[in-house]
């Protein structure tokens, strides 16, 4: 029993620490601090406990313990829908909404992180059980944690596209960025503000895969949201003219975006766009298909 204690505690500890390391509060302010933080930390500890307990249970020939893991999977799915629901509900109160694709991406990430905590705890407890040595358990756990983490590291917009400064102009009431029409702006004062203080960028995809990915509307909404969050947005609910919009050049597949930012610094805008994650749900790979490759010639 004493042995099992060591196995359990080391597994739970490493799994929980892993979950804690993945809980970062950055510019997204998500998970919210402190309550959202506590929720996820506790769920992470439960995930780690479920992973750690599997090995002693199997060692004792309690094969029904495997159903515990199925229960865990069910539990984590709940986490995904919990995240989705709560983000969906507050999205309407954002000046620039995240959009459903970005929300789905965040929810998926939270689900996956619990699996990481569980698998890490499982690895640690299994290694400690087999080797009888806590240190080797810690090492194995760390290696598994890091390798999962690296393999899950998603792409950024900067990896799939060039981002450059673009010029804002007007054709009558039409707001244009590098020749692409964004929207019709009626009031001359608003047009003047756009001409003097707004920023614009052009996102040029590196290949056909990137072009298809960037065409996704959810991905474009995520770009606008991220830019607005990081640079600040000069807009209130009664000023829909200042909603940042990303439009596509249908000839070249380039994306243009204009934003009326609090901090009109083009380098920061380019950086914010480059650091925006490529959403899992928007990722397309036409070049991986024979037809797509042939068409790209």
């Amino acid at each position, binding site marked *: 029993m004493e042995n099992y204690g060591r196995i359990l505690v080391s597994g739970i500890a490493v799994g929980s620490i892993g979950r804690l390391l993945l809980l970062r509060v950055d510019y997204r302010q998500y998970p919210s601090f402190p309550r959202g933080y506590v929720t996820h930390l506790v769920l992470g500890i439960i995930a780690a406990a479920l992973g750690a307990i599997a090995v002693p249970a199997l060692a004792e020939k309690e094969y029904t313990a495997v159903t515990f893991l199925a229960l865990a999977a069910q539990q984590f799915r709940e986490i995904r829908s919990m995240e989705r629901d709560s983000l969906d509900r507050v999205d309407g109160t954002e000046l620039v909404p995240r959009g459903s694709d970005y929300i789905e991406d965040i929810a998926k990430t939270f689900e996956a992180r619990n699996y990481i905590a569980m698998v890490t705890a499982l690895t640690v407890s299994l290694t400690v059980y087999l080797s009888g040595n806590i240190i080797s358990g810690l090492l194995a756990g760390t290696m598994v944690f890091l390798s999962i983490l690296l393999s899950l590291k998603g792409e950024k917009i900067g990896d799939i596209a060039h981002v450059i400064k673009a010029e804002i102009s007007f054709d009558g*009431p039409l707001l244009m960025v590098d020749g692409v029409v964004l929207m*019709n*702006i*009626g009031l001359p004062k608003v047009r003047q503000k756009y001409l003097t203080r707004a920023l614009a960028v052009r996102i040029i995809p590196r290949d056909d895969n990137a072009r298809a990915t960037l065409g996704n509307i959810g991905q474009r909404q995520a770009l606008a949201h991220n830019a607005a969050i990081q640079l600040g947005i000069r807009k209130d609910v009664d000023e829909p003219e200042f909603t940042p919009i990303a439009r596509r050049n249908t000839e070249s597949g380039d994306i243009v975006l204009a934003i009326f930012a609090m901090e009109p610094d083009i380098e920061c805008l380019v950086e914010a766009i480059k650091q925006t994650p490529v959403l899992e749900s928007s990722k397309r790979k036409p070049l991986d298909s024979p037809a797509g490759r042939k068409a790209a010639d």
Partner: protein
Amino acid sequence: MDTRLNEVILAIVTTDSERVIHSSAPVFYARDEEERERVALLLSKITLGMVHDLANGCFVIVKH
């Protein structure tokens, strides 16, 4: 359930009465350019809609 009308013309502001015939949206006639812009701005603040220019003397207020 939250029900809204989006992408609908809420109002038309014009200086040229001949440009608008049988409108389902309310039409506001303005005496000059200045009044047209002022009325359009006020309407957009009331309806939270956006002012679009049809480039023929008409502004339309649209809810997006």
